[in-house]
């Protein structure tokens, strides 16, 4: 049996009296893309920083690549790649010098770094900018450079803390595609996100975190099947009064009805049937959307809150 790359049991992080990560258990297997999904403040970065051996564990058991971060931090870091939430590129240097300098921190020879840096900059479509300074690069390029740099030591596992937050759709898709290729080449990915589509695109398995705890775990499909219904109907009404009148009418036919400020979500196995109930009472929503349920719905169902405020 393959050993897990990350082994966390009762993992806890406290800042003073505040508990950011509250006794979580999870394991990351070699070759998988493991995600942590959750709103801001859920404790994702705190967890990632403990895995990356840049933040000491307050309590609980944590083993990375079979080693204890408190004892073997440098040895673990030598074998993983780290993309922190905020870019930490060396802004005083060119793209190329960033790659070289970072590679040297691992003690890799200049010759080997040149070879790898050239390959990585090509892979991440940055080779044309190799002699440019880092500051004027676009957000997407900086992010790609941060990822490229994190691969200079050919890590077995890469930690990506919100890899695409703040990027425009094209930049996100390019990065997703590269990360997917990376995963196919056998690199284990551990990533955090608060984007549902990112989690669905990239993760084989994920945990949903909220307020320092894991509230659900599984593949994206499993989570939806387990916690949501097949379909979701989104309804908007002309007035609050109409919305309030329709909720009790919808409830009998569906396992769950969420009344939000601007719309009603009906979790149901049959969207058309639910709409029929309203038509019987001559209630006419101003807009109707019947869709497959997503991780966003899972999150809302589990926590009663929306993911992106």
């Amino acid at each position, binding site marked *: 049996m393959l050993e897990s790359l990350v082994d966390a049991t009762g993992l806890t992080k406290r800042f003073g009296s505040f508990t950011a990560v509250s006794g979580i258990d999870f394991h990351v297997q070699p070759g998988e893309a493991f995600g942590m999904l959750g709103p801001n403040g859920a404790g994702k970065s705190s967890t990632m920083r403990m895995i990356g051996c*840049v933040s000491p564990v307050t309590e609980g058991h944590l083993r990375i690549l079979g080693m204890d971060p408190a004892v073997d931090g*440098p040895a673990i*870091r*030598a074998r993983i790649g780290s993309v922190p939430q905020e870019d930490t590129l*060396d*802004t005083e240097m060119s793209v190329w*010098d960033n790659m070289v300098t970072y590679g040297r*921190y*691992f*003690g890799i020879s200049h010759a080997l770094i040149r070879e790898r840096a050239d390959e990585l900059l090509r892979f991440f479509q940055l080779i044309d900018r190799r002699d440019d300074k880092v500051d004027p690069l676009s957000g997407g390029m900086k992010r790609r450079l941060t990822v490229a740099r994190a691969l200079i030591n050919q890590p077995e596992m890469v930690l990506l803390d919100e890899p695409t937050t703040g990027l425009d759709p094209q930049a996100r898709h390019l990065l997703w595609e590269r990360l997917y290729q990376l995963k196919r080449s056998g690199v284990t990915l551990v990533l955090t996100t608060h984007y549902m589509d990112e989690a669905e695109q990239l993760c084989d398995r994920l945990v949903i975190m909220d307020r320092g705890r894991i509230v659900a775990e599984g593949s994206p499909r499993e989570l939806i099947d387990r916690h949501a219904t097949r379909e979701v109907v989104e309804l908007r009404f002309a007035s609050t009064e109409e919305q309030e009148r329709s909720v009790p009418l919808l409830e009998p036919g569906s396992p769950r009805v969420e009344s939000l400020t601007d719309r009603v979500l009906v979790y149901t196995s049959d969207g058309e049937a639910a709409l029929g109930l309203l038509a019987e009472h001559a209630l006419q929503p101003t807009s109707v959307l019947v869709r497959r349920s997503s991780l966003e719905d899972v999150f809302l169902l589990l926590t009663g809150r929306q993911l992106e405020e």
Partner: protein
Amino acid sequence: MIAMGGARLLVERNVRAYRRQWFVFASGFAEPLLYLLSIGIGVGELVGRIPGPGGELVTYREFVAPGMLAAAAMNGAILDTTFNFFVKLKYQGVYDAMLATPLRPFDIAAGEVSWSLLRGAAYSAAFLVAMLLFGLVHSWWAVLVVPAAVLIGFAFAGAGLGATTYMRSWTDFDLVSAALVPMFLFSGTFFPLSRYPGWFEWVVKATPLYQGVALERALVFGALDWTTPLHAAYLIALGLVGVRIASRRLATLLTA
């Protein structure tokens, strides 16, 4: 020296970063020379002879040159370990990036100190050459001027790093100036301590720059005595304490 391996990589990083700003680096050579020319030679014409470290009368420029050299070693070390260090620490994330690699907080502290004392050594070596050309060196002990400048660099680099890890904002840097400018002016750099009242003399003697100036002046004039090794020991101790504080504080600040 496995322990210094990480420090060397940081020095390498700084060399790479400064390659694009060689003129900033080069200006460090010019500054003490300008002081020597304007104050040492210009003001020196007006001053006449004053007592040197051995008690004998020396020209003002002979007196002031070792002081300038010590002050240059101090300034070189302070710039890199306070202002520049703060920018890297708080804004550029340079050390956050390093700590994601096998490097440790101690490597950062040791690396920055090594870098700034190398820089200080380069400046003081160039200054020593200038002193030789002006005929301001009188003893073979002067071969130790550069190593002594390295000790001054070490003391101030350690102290600078240690202090900077406690700074919260730019306004705290006014404190650095508030400490350095009087030290520069009163530590026996420009005139002998005998000018001061007794109690103030002791205050001055407690400052690291005085220790550095006294050490350099003793070497340049070949006027060594039992206090010479004490000056060196003081500088080494200050540097070691500073590095230790800095590496601990870096661990606290960067790995919360």
